[in-house]
């Protein structure tokens, strides 16, 4: 039987989303499809499968991603769903659960590159939200001067709030990258 759940995760909350999907699998719900806010599950033996999520540069149909998924399939990871973003894709992989949580990347360089992928996606998004906020505030000020206050422009503070969240996350990611680089300078 298939069951659909609606749940919202920000794009930078993939580890949280992955933990939730694995928790669902432990309760007998195996992910079979995903959208931005919808997750479709089918009944499975509880804990039979584990899931990994990856944020990758490129379209799902690109040669790069197809080749990677084919390689991962040989490694025992089956692609069960994906969600597309501009020039990026979130990949959902399923593996037979043997009690160990497999890592996708074991070396520091790959981990650094992976963290950078999300940063490079988030930074233009943050800048876009800042620009949208500035533009809407300018329009609002213009209307105020002309004597036609339009409170609707204040909705643009949502853009500001999103931009702040994005840049906070980017800062967080760059701290992780810095720590990984320090680790690499010693151990690799």
């Amino acid at each position: 039987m298939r069951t659909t759940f609606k749940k919202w995760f920000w794009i930078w909350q993939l580890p949280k989303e992955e933990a939730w999907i694995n928790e669902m699998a432990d309760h007998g719900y195996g992910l079979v499809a995903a959208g931005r806010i919808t997750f479709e599950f089918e009944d499975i033996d509880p804990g039979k499968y584990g899931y990994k999520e990856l944020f990758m540069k490129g379209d799902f149909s690109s040669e790069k991603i197809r080749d990677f998924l084919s390689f991962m399939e040989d490694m025992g990871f089956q692609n069960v769903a994906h969600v597309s973003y501009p020039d990026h894709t979130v990949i959902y992989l399923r593996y037979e659960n043997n009690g160990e949580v497999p890592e996708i990347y074991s070396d520091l360089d790959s981990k650094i590159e992976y963290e950078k992928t999300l940063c490079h996606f988030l930074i233009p998004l943050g800048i876009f939200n800042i620009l949208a906020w500035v533009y809407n505030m300018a329009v609002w000020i213009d209307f105020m001067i002309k004597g036609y206050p339009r409170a609707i422009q204040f909705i643009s503070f949502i853009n500001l709030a999103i931009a702040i969240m994005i840049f906070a996350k980017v800062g967080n990611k760059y701290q992780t990258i810095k720590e990984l680089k320090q680790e690499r300078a010693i151990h690799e």
Partner: protein
Amino acid sequence: MPQQALTEAVYYILLSLQKPLHGYGIIQNVDELSKGRVKLAPGTLYGALNTLVEKEWIDALPENPESRKKEYVLTASGRTVLKEEIDRLSELVDNGKRLLEES
């Protein structure tokens, strides 16, 4: 210019590819060679294999119709790199042993 040190993952991948192997075979071989100490994750292996093919240190063999899995093998330049790395590692070990024995 002296050769840069190889990462442990690349060193073991090159060492494993003296005979043709596919990805999963490499992971198993590295695990066996390092007595379980080096665990190559698939994403890391995928990136490393692509880089090594680009550098022509390994070759991707034409796909076998019986098995979808792509196999890789060490090239002559890969073997040279591996030998240089072994010399470099030997120097590190010899110097380490000598200086520790002297102190």
